[in-house]
């Protein structure tokens, strides 16, 4: 997951991406993809996943409101 995030970050930075929500969204995708692929054991609830998902929903909601408004 660390490798995938690094590749994502370097790739987006090389492309000159300046929107934080793009980085955030792709980190969210990487996190859930790695969780689904490797299914790591956890000591407790998936708090990072929950927070990432809520943030992603917020970004999507803001974009939708921008489009509608």
């Amino acid at each position, binding site marked *: *997951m*660390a490798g995938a995030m690094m590749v994502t970050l370097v790739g987006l930075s090389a492309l000159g991406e300046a929107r934080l929500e793009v*980085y*955030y969204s792709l980190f969210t995708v990487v996190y859930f993809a790695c969780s689904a692929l490797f299914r*790591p054991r*956890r000591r407790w609830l998936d708090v990072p996943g929950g927070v990432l998902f809520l943030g992603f929903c917020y970004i999507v909601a803001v974009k939708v409101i921008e489009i509608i408004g």
Partner: protein
Amino acid sequence: MSSIDRYTRAGVVLLVFGGPFAAFSYWVLGDVTFTSVGLASLILGATALLVPSRAVPGESVRALVEAAAVNVEALLEEFDVTGGGVYLPPRDGRVYCFVPLGEGLFEVGLAGFNGVPLRVVTRVGGVDCLMVFPPGGEVVRLAGLGEESGVEDALAYVLVDFLEMVEGVRAVERGDRVVVELMRPRVDTGFARFRMCLGSVSASVAGCVLAWVLGEPVAFMGEDVDGGRVTASFRVVRAGQE
């Protein structure tokens, strides 16, 4: 002296670095790339804190499983038992295993086992048998398995997710037969009687899961080992069968 495992240490370091760095990069530097570095550190740190350092059952867990198998092996050896055991659905929340003394198989079904006293040597349907507590009996209880679970889902949950005893599991039901395929078991013992009567440790846990989920006695019929794959056969024991 307390020791913090490596994942917890890494998680704390990443969180301590990532949080302030992301905040500093966003509000002071105004740089999105550095902010993303801090964000990635936060995500990785939080993930690392949640991951236990030993994903595979450690030597201590293996020792506990072997210790449980030693007692069963000694009992089976003492009574010179060679027949396949029958895993019973839970009584008092535990799965027990009845191993016939001699060559007889149980044909009595669940009704024949109900009310049988839980003694070391007991008689079921006219067959003398030895009652043992398989290591998997407690495991299934601790795993919190629901009796409404599907067979393969239950096996995967207990053997792969909960115990991490095997890398993968598949189950095929055909009539009263259930064949369970266990991929690359990580824990096993060298006890011949245990393997003969209850199956390998992974197969024995699978038998306990089957009895729990199916709600009927499940007889261990045998297993084949082919490289990293163990194929264990079970039969659901119902009254009136041949």
